[in-house]
């Protein structure tokens, strides 16, 4: 059991009106709903506006390097698979600098909850294009507009067989909190890509832009159908579906690792005597 106040952290240094505030509200709401206590969660983050997130709530925190949330989170889970682990990343952080880790965390199905603050721009470094920036968007470093096509995170996640793929919108706190609760409820790697307006640098994908486009997936939508999920994931234009796009039960990495069948590593006692047998093999 916890209260929203227990999840209150440092004063945010985000811009007034930033979409990150909605994510923070949704997160605190989700934590209370889940009854998680701050010391029973480890939050990992990278560098960017999203990277500051854990400081603005209150919980165990490893605010590491730009792009490296997922390996840190993976290491934590492997050392202590009794602790829930949430990773907070930016779109640049996760799909740019950290793209490789993202692919492989999905392959492992390590039980980490990944929340991507997808503002389709580099916020903290002042407005360069990110991997999800819309082609044509002009920025100080892309004066002729973004030339590469945008990466569609949910489509790639589904192609990777990611076991839980959702899309949320920071302007829809209620749904977002629900998606967070669902992500924590899912056993396995969970991606929640959160559309998050950056009011300072992204003049294209504004609150209004998103609001005009997002809609909730129908109540009878079946997230277990991979092909349908893939089709819906590609929808990112006039209309953008939000909700749980894809979900699949499969064993987590922790479940598959024989050595984690018992207590977590962090609880194992030192047993030097076992080495006698290992030494014997060397004679």
């Amino acid at each position, binding site marked *: 059991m916890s209260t929203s106040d227990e999840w209150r952290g440092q004063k945010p240094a985000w811009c007034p009106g930033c979409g990150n505030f909605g994510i923070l509200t949704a997160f605190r709401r989700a934590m209370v709903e889940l009854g998680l206590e701050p010391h029973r969660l480890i939050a990992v983050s990278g560098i960017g506006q999203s990277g500051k997130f854990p400081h603005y709530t209150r919980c165990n925190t490893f605010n590491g390097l730009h792009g490296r949330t997922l390996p840190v989170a993976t290491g934590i889970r492997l050392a202590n698979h009794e602790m829930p682990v949430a990773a907070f990343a930016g779109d640049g952080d996760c799909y740019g600098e950290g793209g490789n880790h993202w692919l492989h965390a999905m392959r492992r199905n390590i039980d980490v909850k990944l929340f991507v603050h997808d503002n389709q721009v580099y916020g903290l470094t002042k407005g360069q294009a990110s991997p999800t920036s819309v082609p044509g968007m002009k920025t100080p470093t892309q004066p002729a507009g973004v030339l590469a096509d945008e990466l569609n995170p949910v489509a790639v996640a589904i192609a990777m067989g990611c076991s839980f793929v959702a899309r949320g919108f920071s302007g829809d706190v209620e749904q977002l909190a629900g998606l967070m609760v669902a992500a924590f409820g899912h056993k396995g790697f969970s991606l929640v890509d959160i559309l998050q307006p950056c009011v300072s640098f992204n003049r294209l994908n504004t609150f209004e832009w998103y609001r005009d486009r997002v809609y909730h997936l129908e109540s009878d939508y079946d997230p277990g159908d991979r092909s349908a999920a893939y089709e819906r994931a590609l929808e990112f234009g006039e209309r953008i579906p939000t909700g749980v796009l894809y979900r699949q039960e499969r064993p987590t990495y922790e479940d598959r690792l024989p050595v984690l069948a018992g207590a977590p590593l962090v609880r194992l006692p030192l047993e030097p005597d*076992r080495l006698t047998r290992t030494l014997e093999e060397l004679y």
Partner: protein
Amino acid sequence: MDYTIKIGGAAGQGIATIGESLSKVFSRSGLHLFSFQDYESRVRGGHNFFQIRFSDRPVLAPREPVDVLVGLDGESIPLHGGELSDIGSALYDPTASGTEYGDPRFTGVPFKRLAVDSGGAEVMANTVASGAVLGMLGMDVSLLEAVLTDTLSRHPEAVEGNVKAARAGHDFGSNNCPRCSFSVPEGSGRKMVIEGNQALGLAAIASGCRFYSAYPMTPSTGILTFLAGHAERHGLVVEQAEDEIAAINMALGASFAGVRSMTGTSGGGFALMVEGVSLAGMTETPVVIVLAQRPGPATGLPTRTEQADLLYALFAGHGEFPRVVLAPGTPEQAFRAVNRAFDLTEKYQVPVIILTDQHYADSTWSLDGVDLSAFEYTDYRVRGDAFKALPTYRRHAFTETGVSPLAVPGDAPHVVVTDSDEHDEDGHLIEDAATRARMVDKRFLKKMPLIRGEIEPPLHYGSPAPEITLVGWGSNYGVMKEAVDALSASRDIAMLHFSELYPFPDESASDFMDVIRSSKHAICIESNVSGRFAWLARAETGFDFKDRISRYDGRPFTLEGLLEELDVYL
């Protein structure tokens, strides 16, 4: 008695299997041995060799003269025939070489045919070779039979054929080497054979390591393989990461969560870990990193040896933070280095780098055994009830020593917060100058002298006041020590071997710089071109090594090679 056996062949021909069987025979007989490998970066073909030196006294380094040469390919005799010692003999496969050599020192052996004729199969040709070597040496074949029985325990159906092949080879070796006059004395007690990388893995387990993440890279892969193979028994997670960046960040995550963790790689992979090293420095997260050197730059010679990464290891990572760099040269030094690495990284919360190289990693030594009680283990972390009992908790609290309490997240209602940004005592990011300066004082100025105080001076071996001092580090231990032994009778000579390189040992706490300064020749011996250690020593002590011996062709120093280079100083 001090014999060298060289087994040459193509990759895939199984020369390592022969080498390993013979090594077990020698070590189980109580003899001392040292072996090393020379191989190409390919899986089949080319020319590799495996070289074993064995003796009734400890041996530590490669020698050049070969007493028994076994050639499985056509290149062995042309390449190594000239290395035979006065009493040396060679066996070769006439089918592979396509010719018969007239030289009486070279005996053609139809390995495959003998294997088949004896009742085994073609694949047992290597067993024939092993048996033949023992026959030439005048050693009993029963030792090899026992080794084969053990090694093949999972394939019992193969034992009989192999034993027959071994005997056939042994008969051949005993009867067809008229020049052979070897005499191998009885050794005392059985010994184990341990490879450099195995020693590191074993020591990590004995030091309480619970997490090893790495990406395969020669010559560090042996650690990964050893630990993976023993993970279940010893309660470790061994994770092959998607890349080296992930490997070090996983290790840091595991360490943050409360377990001792390690990673390992070679120079190119270490490059990708550099940012993580700096992250360990900033977040004060313990981690041990093995950097197994090979010749660079870039991919270089992936399967060869070099010692060019000392300063690279020393300054890897932006910003300033303390670190420890250790460089063991033998399995015993490795046990101690790994154990100290885990102790120091947990005690001071600074990264510790263990610098080895291919020559260390792939060589094997015989040991009487491993004294498990010599491994020390102090848990410096705040966990469980002790953590719960704390009234407050600040991950980066300012303290007298600069070391803050390292707690296990989840064990108490306190939260554990750390940040790669500059932070306050609570671990939250800050912008102000005053906190920044205090944090640098804490992390660097306070810890550094304490860590320096832990560092051991170099090992001084030989004359107490030498005229000639050989100075070196890491895997050159064995060859330097043997050179001192070889020259001690006629010369006032000693070795200073550094296995703890950074912080540089305190010259005011020991007399090693006096030894160096008062030597007529202090000769710095390194396997690199520019003298990385010599440079470090000058930066730290002002002493300028005028005399240097370098090898940088990717091959290790041999005893004879080093003695020849030393000749000008004698």
